[in-house]
């Protein structure tokens, strides 16, 4: 019920999202896929990226992560753009199994955050399923607030930690 009204709001402001949407973490995001993934993950014999690998995934999608507002798990236009690209890649490699991790910021209690992280991971999974990805290919795991990406105790860090990450095995 609450989600519906928020979705409508998200659509309404969707056109202006690059400038005005407060939801997304600030400029440093989304991180460049090459930052952590591409260089460290297995590549072919001559350094070429293996099709269907984690490195290939990170190179092919705008981000492996989508981000959420405080205490929310709705998918907005920005998330859709990311997840559409992920879905297209997953369509190309139908044998790849992924895990979708749900994460929260530190400003929630531990057990509630475990439940909220599951809700976020499932929001991403459900969207990917709606784009034709077989749900049996997508495991979900919630880490709650146990594995933050940003270490600070500030709004910017919290925004980066409220996320769902699509993890392709290496």
């Amino acid at each position, binding site marked *: 019920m609450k989600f519906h009204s928020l979705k409508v709001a998200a659509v309404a402001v969707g056109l202006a999202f690059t400038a005005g949407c407060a939801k997304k973490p600030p400029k440093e995001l989304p991180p460049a896929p090459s930052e952590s993934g591409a260089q460290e993950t297995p590549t072919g014999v001559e350094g070429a990226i293996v099709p269907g690998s984690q490195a290939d995934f990170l190179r092919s999608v705008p981000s492996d992560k989508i981000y959420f507002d405080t205490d929310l*798990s709705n998918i907005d236009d920005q998330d859709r753009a990311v997840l559409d690209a992920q879905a297209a890649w997953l369509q190309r490699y139908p044998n790849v199994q992924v895990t979708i991790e749900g994460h929260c910021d530190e400003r929630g209690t*531990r*057990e*509630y955050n*475990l*439940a909220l992280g599951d*809700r976020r991971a499932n929001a991403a999974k459900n969207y990917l399923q709606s784009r034709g990805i077989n749900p049996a290919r997508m495991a979900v795991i919630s880490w709650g607030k146990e594995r933050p990406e940003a*270490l600070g105790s500030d709004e910017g860090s919290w925004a980066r930690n409220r996320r769902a990450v699509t993890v392709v095995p290496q």
Partner: protein
Amino acid sequence: MTQYRLLFAGIAAAFLLATQPAQAQLSVDVTDESGDDLAIAVPALATPQTAQTAAGSTDALGRQIADIIVSDLRGSGLFRPIGPNAVRAIGYPEVTAPDFGYWPGTGAEALVQGFIRAEADGRLTIGCYLYDVALKQELTRQGFVLAPADWRRAAHKCADAIYARLSGESPFFDSRVAYIAESGPKNHRVKRLAIMDSDGANHRFLTNGQSVVLTPRFSPDYRQIVYLSYIDKRPRIYLYDVGTGKQRIITESANQTFAPRFSPDGRNILYSMAVGGNTDIYRVSVSGGQPVRLTNSPGIDVGGSYAPDGSRIVFESDRSGSQQVYVMNADGSNQRRISFGGGRYATPEWSPRGDLIAFTKIVGNFRIGVMTPDGQGERLLTNSWQDEAPTWSPNGRVIQFFRTSQGSGGKSSIWQVDLTGRNERRLPTPLDGSDPTWGPLLP
């Protein structure tokens, strides 16, 4: 029931006070916020003859036991102990015949004297006596014969007897705490299951930190600990056998299970399970079998804590749009919200006395508070950046919780506070600590 008894005792005491002010019995009041603590002298325990034991010499033990009694009593916030360093040593014959001419000069209103004796069979006999200095009267005594390795328990039992006699409350020092020991960077904390005595002594790690472990709870007999483990990257609840070190999964499930709790009789485990983004509360027998689903609202129903008689469960739900505290019957019927104070409410824990619910209140910062089971009389006990997850002392008079510090360090520590909110202190742990769970009084 307990409340009535205390009420009558209070009335009787007030009457005595009014009629016989000069001869009032010594007592302390756990609800007293005046800071007017009772002065109590605790000299080193006397020994008839210094002897070596498996835990050290009886001389040294006599002093260490007095130190523990002092530490326990001070930690309760009701006493101003005068320890073995500040008063003269006593001789063995004095233990049962205090020098009532000397003690008033020390400022002590109460006096604890005791002895420790090594027995021929290798065990220790430890006795302690509590005296009212003004009335020149013995108030209570305790004695134990035990293995040298258990000497600290005798100290806690003595402190418990003193606390119970002078406060009218149930004892709580001789009890244990399980918690999660933490180390490493904030984005990759190593978490280990650990146990310790209520004062932090006899610390022991139970898991090696290879898998993330969270939210332990003791079984009522201390033999098992139920907790969440991320072993094999499959978060499920496990039962750890403290005696054998073995663990087993509680209930096989395709979905994530977490937030486990024992029922007061130790026969059932309450847990939460997330299915497709929707979390509900279930109950399963410790021996396994078919789980029973207790909640079915759309949204997050999580955690839970039984009333001491097992008839009701307090839990947390965001069905109203934000985290709030609800009470239901043990079979899941009659669910109703009890928190209406504004802000979010989380991690409710029912006091072992039955009279209060402790919770984490989120209004910007996280604070520990208490309210009655019908949601009345809310009081916040702490005020820090992030205090979370209260657990009750066995007598329902003290609360432990964990405090997280702001910033990139991710530091956490275990604290305790009494119900006045006045006496707050940090527990000593070798590493950082979180998710404390306080077990019942040891027999």
